[in-house]
């Protein structure tokens, strides 16, 4: 049996909660969903200078392409650029960086590159055995902190007033459940289409145009648009807990379409309350006394890790 699009007679390429869609109707549906997210949640405005956090994977190529398209469609005069952090993960980042360079050249998008080695003097592969030598922590505990710090600093220094990321509905649903299962209400307050709890000096707000797009929809969009996405998975990313949550969600989504959307929609209902509570509970942000980046302690987490790296 050949499934037909519920809007026309063409062959369907995806079955969604509300019916099947052919290639052309899916592409329109996906783009409209992203543009509506940007507009409805006020993610970008005409005065913004926009940094786009990129990796070369399906999410970042898609969000680069659609941010550019949104700005053109709405005649925003915004300057925008892609920003990639090269962590120094052998056998991984060099491949996605190459894909990103090719894409940006073809799309005529400015690309800025920053590496852990330039910023911290070491690659992630070199830092992990030293910083985590006495713990069982994974490299991701360093990578996440240093990446966020560099993205914020270099976006801000390039004049960005918004930092676009490629986080999708799966990422968000996974994070919501992980925080819930581990009782991290404070961390959950930072989620949402606009990251962060409040506006802070020196902090470039992070926004997520793919917030309501599933990972499958995003991969399909990238495939149908002909973006070159070579499969690449970070060798450090095989974290047990997140993978278990991902598999659980995919299993449920397969059986009950709309599960991930339902989790995120429910979460958005309570997010304002979580943000309000977090504003009351957490310390007022200040500037790190070492690097000047926004921090909730005297020394930010990124500098604290660097101290461990250089400890005798």
């Amino acid at each position, binding site marked *: 049996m050949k499934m037909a699009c519920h809007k026309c007679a063409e062959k369907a390429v995806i079955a969604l909660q509300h019916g099947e869609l052919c290639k052309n109707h899916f592409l329109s549906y996906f783009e409209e969903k992203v543009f509506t997210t940007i507009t409805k949640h006020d993610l970008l405005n005409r005065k913004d200078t926009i940094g786009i956090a990129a990796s070369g994977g399906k999410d970042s190529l898609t969000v680069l392409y659609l941010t550019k398209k949104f700005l053109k469609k709405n005649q925003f005069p915004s300057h925008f650029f892609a920003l990639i952090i090269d962590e120094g993960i052998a056998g991984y980042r060099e491949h996605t960086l190459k894909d990103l360079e090719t894409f940006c050249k073809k799309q005529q998008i400015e690309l800025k590159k920053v590496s852990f080695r330039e910023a911290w003097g070491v690659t992630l592969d070199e830092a992990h055995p030293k910083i985590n030598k006495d713990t069982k922590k994974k490299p991701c505990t360093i990578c996440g902190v240093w990446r966020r710090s560099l993205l914020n600093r270099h976006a801000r220094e390039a004049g960005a007033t918004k930092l676009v990321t490629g986080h999708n509905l799966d990422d968000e649903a996974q994070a919501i459940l992980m925080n819930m299962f581990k009782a991290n209400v404070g961390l959950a307050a930072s989620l949402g289409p606009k990251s962060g709890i409040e506006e802070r000096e020196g902090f470039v707000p992070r926004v997520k145009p793919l917030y309501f797009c599933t990972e*499958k929809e995003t991969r399909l969009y990238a495939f149908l648009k002909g973006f070159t996405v070579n499969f690449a998975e970070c060798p450090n990313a095989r974290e047990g807990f997140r993978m278990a949550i991902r598999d659980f969600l995919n299993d449920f989504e397969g059986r009950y379409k709309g599960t991930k959307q339902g989790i995120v929609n429910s979460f958005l209902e309570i997010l304002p309350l979580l943000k309000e509570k977090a504003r009351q509970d957490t310390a007022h942000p200040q500037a790190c006394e070492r690097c000047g980046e926004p921090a909730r302690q005297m020394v930010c987490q990124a500098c604290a890790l660097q101290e461990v790296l250089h400890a005798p």
Partner: protein
Amino acid sequence: MNITVIHERKQATEHIQFAGKSVFELLQKINVSSEAVIVVRNNDVLTENDLLNDNDEIQLLSVISGG
């Protein structure tokens, strides 16, 4: 029927003897979630209800990527 399955994520090819008919049944047989892959035959995207033919070569593009 005989189906060749190319797994992008595992970077492996698998030859399967299969008594079912649809993509849905194939994914069930090889224990792959339909949410984790895009199923492609001759560069055409298939849905779970599409039917397979003997000697089809199927690509499973991984939805999961990155870090």
